[in-house]
């Protein structure tokens, strides 16, 4: 035992001095990095909760080009399915005007000096990543253009349902995509998502003009 310890110690020292340090294994890296996360932020316990990953986020945090296994993909879709909640009213198509306003609103729930942004409701963030109504210039391109969304797909019940589910939890159709699971993470309420659906599919909405 003693010999073994000595040997490991000198081997470790040898590694260091020879300048051939080795990469830690994945579990060790994970442990070190997770510790860093929880030491790095000053926050109330409620705010610190935001650092904790749910199961889906854990699976979707693979380093580099590592691919999802089939089992993981299946689990993600199942978790996404189970997460989706509909408005109490049962109405999944709300008011496109409210949706229009929300789509262009990128604020909400950010934290500075321990205080959460003081607003009535969160913006929907869509404009940050998607082109919306024709001619709008200040739009991102992280996601595909949604211009003419309803014009192309119509506003059937099936389209409304797909769109609602997609916005509520984008990973139900595309596990680990870069689109946030805006309903499932609590960023948007079911009612807000219904307004987003209306904004995307209503023929009167500027996005379909």
């Amino acid at each position, binding site marked *: 035992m003693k010999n073994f310890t000595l040997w490991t110690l000198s081997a*470790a020292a040898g*590694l*260091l001095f020879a*300048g*051939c*340090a*080795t*990469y*830690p294994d994945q579990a*060790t*890296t*994970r442990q*070190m*990095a997770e510790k*860093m*996360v929880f*030491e*790095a*932020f*000053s*926050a109330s316990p409620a*705010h*610190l909760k*935001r*650092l*904790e*990953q749910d199961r889906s*986020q854990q699976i*979707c*945090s*693979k*380093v*580099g080009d590592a691919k999802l296994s089939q089992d993981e993909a299946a689990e993600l879709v199942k978790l996404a399915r189970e997460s989706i909640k509909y408005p109490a009213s049962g109405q999944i198509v709300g008011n496109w005007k409210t949706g229009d306003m929300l789509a262009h609103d*990128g604020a909400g*729930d*950010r*934290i*500075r*000096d*321990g205080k959460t942004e003081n607003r009535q409701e969160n913006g929907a*963030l869509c*404009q*940050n*990543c998607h082109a919306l109504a024709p001619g709008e*210039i*200040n*739009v*991102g*391109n*992280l996601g595909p253009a949604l211009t003419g969304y309803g014009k192309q797909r119509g506003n059937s019940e099936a389209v409304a349902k797909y769109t609602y589910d997609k916005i509520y939890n984008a990973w139900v159709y595309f596990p680990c995509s*870069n689109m*946030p*699971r*805006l309903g499932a*993470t*609590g*960023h948007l309420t079911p009612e807000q998502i219904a307004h987003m659906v209306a904004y995307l599919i209503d023929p009167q909405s500027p996005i379909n003009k």
Partner: protein
Amino acid sequence: MNKKRGICAATLATLCLALVTPVFAQSGDPLAVGRKMLVEDNPGELWIDQGKALFYEKRGPRKVSLEQCDFGMGPGKLEGAAARLPRYFADTDRVEDLETRLLTCMTRLQGFDRDQLIKTAISAPASKGSDIEALALYITSRSNGVRVNVSLSHQKEYDMYKAGEYLFYRRSGQTDFGCVQCHGEAGKRIRLQDLIHMTSKAGAQEVSSTWPAYRGSHYVVRTMQWRLNDCVWQMRLPDLKYATDYSIALTTFLNRQGNDAVIQVPGFKR
């Protein structure tokens, strides 16, 4: 809110530049002067002299300069030092980035209070900037023209690098963001803001060689720590503390990926 002060500061900076660069004034075409200044003159240059003065001044409760501070190449040796940061330091037994190392020296050598330094480390927009911002820029500027060369020969440097890589891909919070969601592809934008593609060599090199940078919309010099704070804020995470291993790990990862870029600071950012 700070717009008015901001414009004043910018005008002042422009005036100062006009004073210290009489060469351009001779060209006769005022528009050409303006154009040339935009390309060649970075208001951030003004912070270099400020940082240099702070570096050599005897300061702090112990009334000493930073000349005894070892940034990795030996006490007071600044040439090329920033190009190798973050790196392992035996005296603290940890990997430190530029800002952490500055804190170490300002507290250990000069006797400043760490909490106090941290409180003022990131300055208000359109202010005259913080000591740490000016010092970080001055020290990095002494590596201008030098290639980034972050080594991972110490085990703790390897560990830091791997942790940084892990963190770059770590998703959390209500937007499901990790860094890679915004910095993992070429040609992407959040609204009109171009996002650097950091999983490409060229993108990582842009990061590793241009900070600290003059931030045009803030009229001050900004450091990497400020940049990380801003991204984390957009991610809806809580307040990131100054100079923690989280930032050092990400900076180690990014700078190492950006090895071989030629440092040219201050960078100029939107």
